[in-house]
Each structure stands twice: as C-alpha cells, then as structure tokens.
C-alpha cells in the first residue's frame, strides 16, 4: 500500500497535477491514475501506464497544472466506480474492466457524466474472436454466442457474425447448450449469468463431446480447456489507453468505449487435436501488435 501511494504521489507530481485544487479555467490537461487495490498486478499496470502517459501530458507546464482539466485513468472495476463517483471536471478512461461491468457502472450514472467517460474493455473483441475461429477451422464456421441479461448490449455487435442465443439467469445450461449444438464454435463472453466457476468445466466438457470448440475470453480460459482466444497483454491495453488519452488531449473528444485493439492469440493445442483441428501458423500468429 505504501508503495502504491508513493507511486501515485510521484505520478501526480511528475504530471504537475493537483486534483484537490481545480483550476478556474481549463488551459490544458493533467492525468491521474486511479487504482482500486495495491496488488502487484495493479502496480505493474500503473507503472507501465505512467510511462506511457507522461509523454502525452509532459508538454504542459507545471505551474499551469492547477488550472488544467483532469484525465482519470481507472484501473479495474473498483477504480472505475471510484472515478465515476468523483465530482470533478474530469474525464474518465476506464481500462481493465469488462464491458459487462462497464455497462453496469455507467447505466447507473447520469447521461452527462457518461459522456465524459470512455473505456477500453478487458475482454477481446468479438470480431477478432470470430476471425480467429475462422482461421482455426480454415473456413467460415458457425459460431454461437450465449448472451445473458448483462451482455445483451453486445447483440448488435455480434449480429451477422454469430448465432446469438439469449439466456436468462438460472436457465439450465444443459438445455441452453443443447440449443446451440448445431454450431461448431461457441464464443464465450464474460457474463456471470452464463459462465461461472461451477459450470465452466461442464460447459467445456459438453461442447467437447459435441465436437464444438470454445473460443474463450482470456488466456486463463484457454489453459483450462477452451480451444483458443485472443488476448491482450497489459502493455497492449496501456498502449491503447495512452493512444486514447493522446487523442483526447489533441482533440478534446473522447472516443466511444472500445474493445482492445492490440492482441495476440493463445491456442490450446491439445484441445485442437481432440477436435481434429490442424492449427496453422497463421492462426497461431494471429495478432495485432502495438506500435
């Protein structure tokens, strides 16, 4: 905790920021990284993010920092809630938070406040996932996605790419999975109403028995039995956040929330063999590297 507080103090000092004293007129920007915990992961994210944000905000003179507009970068759901709850003339860029949580947070905020907030979602972009499935099967495949109440907002983005099945909280997963048995690939999305630690194994087993590959939403999920996923390293997300912040500083406009732009691919070769999928190097190297 001491380490993290020292880091945050350093960040504010280096950026010439002082959140406690808002400037009467904005003539520039300063940033603040908001964290929700002091875990090593958070510290690592914060340190990397600081390095990437400093060049953007270093052009502003320190003595003018008091009057500049504040950019809050929230790392994780807790930090997002904290940043959203602040009453300040600031914009919020949320990172390392899933789209589901983002939605749940912003749905509770006034629209005006929401306008000053944007996000880089934590989970991979469905487009990239579908593209990965195509690369794995080396042909267009029938992809199914099960959306719960909290992920129903993704329906438009999945339209045309996947057979979307909407399920309610408490539905029997066996029945739900039986309804998508004609699909070759199940696109898993982070939705606690659908996927949880108790049923994830049986979902993987059920799909495996039906010769269905599961495209997960994290590298950890691939480790426990999903066929493949695209995933973004911390640096990939931080780079995208930095780019987003730089765009905001340059234009004063916040982009819409977006899925990770930079990613790489993780494939469970054993699962692939079991599903008689010959993994190509093209699939293995499917990625979008950060500049």
């Amino acid at each position, binding site marked *: 905790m001491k380490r993290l507080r020292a880091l945050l103090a350093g960040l504010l000092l280096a950026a010439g920021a002082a959140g406690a004293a808002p400037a009467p007129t904005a003539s520039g920007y300063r940033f603040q990284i908001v964290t929700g915990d002091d875990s090593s992961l958070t510290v690592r994210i914060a340190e990397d993010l600081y390095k990437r944000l400093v060049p953007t905000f270093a052009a502003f003179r320190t003595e003018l920092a008091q009057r500049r507009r504040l950019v809050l970068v929230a790392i994780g*759901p807790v930090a997002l809630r904290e940043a959203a709850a602040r009453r300040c003339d600031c914009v919020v860029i949320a990172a390392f938070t*899933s789209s589901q949580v983002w939605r749940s947070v912003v749905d509770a905020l006034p629209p005006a406040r929401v306008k000053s907030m944007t996000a880089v979602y934590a989970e*991979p972009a469905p487009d990239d996932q579908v593209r990965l499935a195509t690369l794995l099967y080396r042909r267009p495949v029938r992809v199914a996605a099960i959306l719960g109440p909290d992920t129903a907002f993704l329906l438009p983005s999945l339209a045309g790419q996947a057979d979307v099945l909407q399920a309610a909280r408490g539905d029997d997963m066996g029945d739900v999975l039986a309804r998508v048995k004609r699909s070759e690939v199940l696109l898993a999305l982070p939705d606690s109403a659908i996927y949880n*630690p*108790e049923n994830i194994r049986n979902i993987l087993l059920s799909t495996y028995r039906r010769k269905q590959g599961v495209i997960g939403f*994290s590298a*950890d999920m691939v480790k426990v039995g999903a066929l493949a996923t695209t995933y973004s390293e911390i640096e990939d*997300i931080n780079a995208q956040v930095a780019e987003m912040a730089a765009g905001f500083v340059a234009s004063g406009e916040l982009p819409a929330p977006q899925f990770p732009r930079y990613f790489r691919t993780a494939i469970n070769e054993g699962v692939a063999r079991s599903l008689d999928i010959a993994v190509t190097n093209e699939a293995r190297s499917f990625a979008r590297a950060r500049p």
Partner: protein
Amino acid sequence: MKLRFWRSWSIGLRMAFITMLPVVFLFTAFVWYSWYAHRAQVAEELAERGRILARALAETSEYNVISGNLTDLRLTINGLVQSDKSIFRVDVIDASGKRAVRVTSETAQDAEPHYYEAPIRKQVVWINLFTDNGTPHVSASSDARPPTLTTEIVGAVQVRMSPSNMLAKQTRRFRIELAMAALALLASGILAWVLARSLTLPLKEAIGALRKIRGGTYRVDLPVTTGGEVGELQASIGEMSVALEQSTQDLENKVAERTRDLLASRNEALRADADKRKLIQKVNSIIEDERKTIAVEIHDELNASLIAVRLEAQSIGTLAAKAQPGPEVDEIRNKAQAITKLALDLYANGRRLVRRLRPEVLDMLGLHGAVEEMLRHYDSAGCRFAFHSDGDFSRLGNELAISAYRIVQEALSNIMKHAAATSAEVTLVLDAAHDLLRIEVEDNGHGFDPASSGEGIGIIGMRERVYALRGTIAVRSAPERGTTLTIALPLSGASAVS
C-alpha cells in the same frame, strides 16, 4: 527340566538336526510370512484399487450425474466392471441419496465386506470471469494465484471389490513360492544328509576299527579319507593300532615267557605237592606201621610178660594160702594179690594202648563198625552221640579207612575236650556215584569264630590227612551255634598218592 532327549542321538542325526533346524525354522517363517504377505497384498491392493476406482469414477461421473446422462455412465461402468474381475459392484448415488446406477459383475464370485466410497464433487475451475470483483480484468495469462473455491458434492460412487480373483492369483504365486521353498528345503535336507554322511561314514569306519581293536585285532587298516578333526581321529586310530599291535606283541612275548616260567613253577609246585602228599602219606603210613609194631610188641611181649607176672603172682598167693598163717604169709598173700592186680591193670593199660596204637577193631569190624565202637566208647552221660551211615564201606582201602578213622577220632576228641556239647552226630556216607567218602561231624557245643580263632593242632592234623588224600575239609562254626565238620575224601585218593 533339562532337555536331554537328544543325548541318545547319533552324530549323523545331530548333524542333520543342527543343519536342518534353522532351515526348517526359516522355511516355516517364510511360508507363514509369504502367506500373510499375499493375503495382506490382496487386501491392500483391493483397498487401493477400490479407492482409486471409486475416486476415478467419482471424477468422471461428475458430468453425467450433473447432466443426468446416466446411460453413458452405466455403459462406462459396465465395461469397467466386466473387464476387471476384481470389481464386484459399482453403485452411483446421486445428490439426493438415491441410487442412480448399479452395475454388478457377472463373473465375480464374492464381495468383500468393505466398500470404497468417493464423493462426486462438482469440479470448479477458476478463471477470471471479469466480474465486478475488484481486481483489474486482464485477458492475458495472469500469474495470480486462484482463490480457494468451495466445491459441492453432487453424489457418491460406491465400489465393492471381489477378492476371489486376486486371491486366486496370489494363491498361485504362493504355491510357486511354496514349491520353491520346499525345493530349497529338500536341497538343504540332501545337503544335510551328505554332510552328515561325510561325518558319520569316517566315524563309522573309525568305530569299526576300534571295535576290531577291542576284539583283539589290533592291526586295522583305516585310511585317512577326510581332513579336520575326523581325519586326525582316523590318523590317531591308525597310529594307535600300530602302537597297540607292537605293545601287544611285546606283551604277548612277555606273557609267553612268564607263562613258561609259571608253568615250570607250577610243575615244580605240583611235583612238590605230590611229594608232600607222598611224604605225609608215607609219614602216616610209617606212623601207623610203627604204631602197629609197637602195638604188636606190647601185645606180644609186654602183655605176655604181664600175664606171666599175674600168673606168677597168683601162684605166690596160692602158695601163701597153703603156708602157715602168719603176718608174713598174709603180707605175701596181700603183695601177691597187689602184684596180680597191678599186672591186670598194666595189662588193661597195655590193651588200651594197643587199641589206640592199632585199632584192630578196624581190621575186624571195618570202618563202619570201628566208628560205631568208637562212639560207644566216647558216649557218656555228658554227651550223647548218634551215628548215621550209608553205603558199602567194605571196599574201602586200609589207608583210607585208617585216615577216616583217625579223622573221626580227632573230631570226637575235640568235641570231648573243647565243645562242651550235650549231643553230637556223626554221619558216614560212601558216595559211590562221586567216588567219595563223606564224613560229617556235627555238635551243639560252644562253637567258635573261625575268623578270629586260630586252628588247633587237631584240626591241622585233620587237614594234613585230608590234604594227603586229596580230599576237602570244611569247618563251619559260630559262637554258641555248634560246629560242623564236613570232609570229603576221594576213594581213589589214597591209592593214587601211594
């Protein structure tokens, strides 16, 4: 209590016992341990397999129990149960405790009383579901340690094992081990027998050689066939045999030499003995002859003279009777009467002397009559004598009769002098069958202790007479128990000596 039952065992048996005892102990221990180990192995393996099987089935049954797809599960378990004969029955119990699946083996015979149960747990796999749990959502692999998640039990698998198949396998192995152990035991037995024989055979040969030596065959051929102590024993016996033979030869030579000396001495003694007997016989004969001569002289000369003196004295008395009475004539008549009486006394003494010197009664009445006469002579109010006789004494030689007469005479004299007996018994038996004259004189007098009392002249004289005639004499007596004198004289003894 001391165990000594083995003391009568032979060396071979002891050797075999010593060799075999540890082997038998080892064999017994091995067989027991092997049987116990096989049984224990069956129990442990069954338990282990049962546990593993239950656990593995519990792991694999989770999906089927949760999904309700029990047909697949039954098929899977059935294949397992029918392929493994050590499984008796598998039951799958659902979360409500109801039996969802039961598969029983078609081949397993019996079930052990214990069953192995494993809970079917809903297996929870932790992944970051990007929920609103506070931590940043990262799609890349995280090094974060997954939290501990509680699992739910959705059922149980019960496996009941059958020991018969595994027991049969272990029994087969045990039999092979038993056969091998028995072979080892047999080999040990044969080895023990060979070892014992290698010891007993030389020992038997040694004992045989010693027996020959004990039987007098000192020269034995006992080759040294083995080493060690037994070999030393064989060598020692061989050396002893040679030494004994040499020693025996020396001894035999000495004995032969000594025997020759002894033979010479014996012959000399025999000759001396014969001479002594002859001498005694001769002395007795001379004494008897001299006595006879003296008796004849007394009878013929002295007694005749005394008769003449008596007659003359009687004549004097007759003449005196015819003469004028007077004191002188009375005195002459009295003197003549005194001379007559004195002559008669002397004559009587002479007669007694003659009878003692030469018992003519022996010539007249024979030994039987002479002894009878002698007893009558000795019989008195103080001691009563009885006489028994058996046999024909007429063919007795003169010398034997005289000796027997003298012996009886000496015996009766001793009774009268020393025994103070009130009765005595004399027995004469002519034992023609054994060619012996048996004399027994028994009295009821004081008796004496033969061990402490020295022999008197009378007994010594009797012994000499008996010795001269090659007879035997025995004196049995005890204080206040009387005395018995037993003499046996060979009928041919006197003539042989003479």
